[in-house]
Every structure is written in C-alpha cells, then in structure tokens.
C-alpha cells in the first residue's frame, strides 16, 4: 500500500497565477518524481529528486520548479500559470535499489490542473 499524497486533487485557476502543487510521502523514500500526463499520452518526467537538496529536470521541458527540503515533501511550483500548463500532474516515489523493492514506483492520486 502506497502512502503518497497529493493536494489539491483539482485546481482551476486564471492565467498568471502562481501555484504550488503539494506532494508528501510517508514511506521514507529517497527518490521522488513529478510526471505530467495528458489524455492518450505516455507519462512524461518533468522533475526528480534523489534526496534532500537534490533536484533535477526530467526529459520533458517544464516551466515549473521543485524543491526538496525534507525527505517526505516534494512540492512543484508554477510561477505564472498559462493555459498550456493544463494537465494532470502525478507525483511518485521509489526506494533505491538495494533495499529490496527494486525500484518499484508508487504514485499519488494526481492533481488535475486547469488554467483558464
């Protein structure tokens, strides 16, 4: 059972607003990820972190930023939202290899973002 939480579940906002999508996990996982998912498309990695104070950009270019000040918390921020940011954002976490779970990836329920 995965314990990874995302808030809000749904967010509708106007163009130009600053938003932060929250993600927390209680499993003590070192690795955390943000994916973007559009209907009928594969998941695209936008940010990842291998531990506290470690963040990297993923394969998909994104105007968002992330921070990792605590192991359990990995928020994603958009400084100025635009309609092109409308998408589902999925947070995930995994344990590093060597701890027995062999990189199983667990997802939160997602945040559906609509920018008007």
């Amino acid at each position, binding site marked *: 059972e*995965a314990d990874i939480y995302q808030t809000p579940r749904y967010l509708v906002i106007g163009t130009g607003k600053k938003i932060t999508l929250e993600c927390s996990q209680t499993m003590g996982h070192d690795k955390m990820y943000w994916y973007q998912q559009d209907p*009928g498309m*594969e*998941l695209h990695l936008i940010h990842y972190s291998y531990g506290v104070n470690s963040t990297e950009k993923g394969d998909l270019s994104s105007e968002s930023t992330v921070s990792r000040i605590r192991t359990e918390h990995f928020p994603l921020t958009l400084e100025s939202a635009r309609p092109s940011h409308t998408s589902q954002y*999925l947070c995930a976490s995994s344990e590093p290899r060597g701890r027995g779970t062999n*990189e*199983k*990836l667990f997802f939160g*329920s*997602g945040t559906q973002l609509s920018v008007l």
Partner: protein
Amino acid sequence: QKEVEQDPGPLSVPEGAIVSLNCTYSNSAFQYFMWYRQYSRKGPELLMYTYSSGNKEDGRFTAQVDKSSKYISLFIRDSQPSDSATYLCAMGGTTSGTYKYIFGTGTRLKVLA
C-alpha cells in the same frame, strides 16, 4: 520510434473473458517491468512487477515477459466490470548512467456486465 509501444485500445470485452494486454519495447537496458492500473482521474496503481523473463501470477493477473523478443503481456482472467480502467505498461533500467522509467500510452479496457 518510441521506446515503448502499447495499443491504446479501447478494448471492450464481456464479463468473464480473458484479456490480453501487450507492450513492445526497443531498449535492451530495461530490467524491470511493471503494469499499472489507472482509473479515471486517479493516479496509476502498481498491479504487477517483474524483472525476469517468464510468467508471474497474482490472483487473476499474470504478467509475462519475453526479453529476447522485447515483449511483455498482462493477462486478466475472469474479467470483471471493476477491471474497467486504463492499463499502463512501464519499464525501468539504466541508460546513459541514469536509472529511468518509460511508460506506454496505456490501453483503455472496458469490461461489459
């Protein structure tokens, strides 16, 4: 060419049918293979996980991996309406020194009562 190919469906089957979902991949660096089930407007839920060629069974679900053909399958026996969801295949492995996951686009399954 995409690293992972998955038939998007939709696939409609009657209740009780055996369902076969498939993915092909091109990168032999992939070592771990996963199937996720995703209900509408929810996050993907890990269903099956395997790292070797062969079959792995869990209840009504069987995951099959053929590394020589770069082909993976998920079989659902005695399908139920509650199995109606999108099924994503995913692979993990180290490429260019970085461990990464690659996902298929998902197959939409509808099981009719």
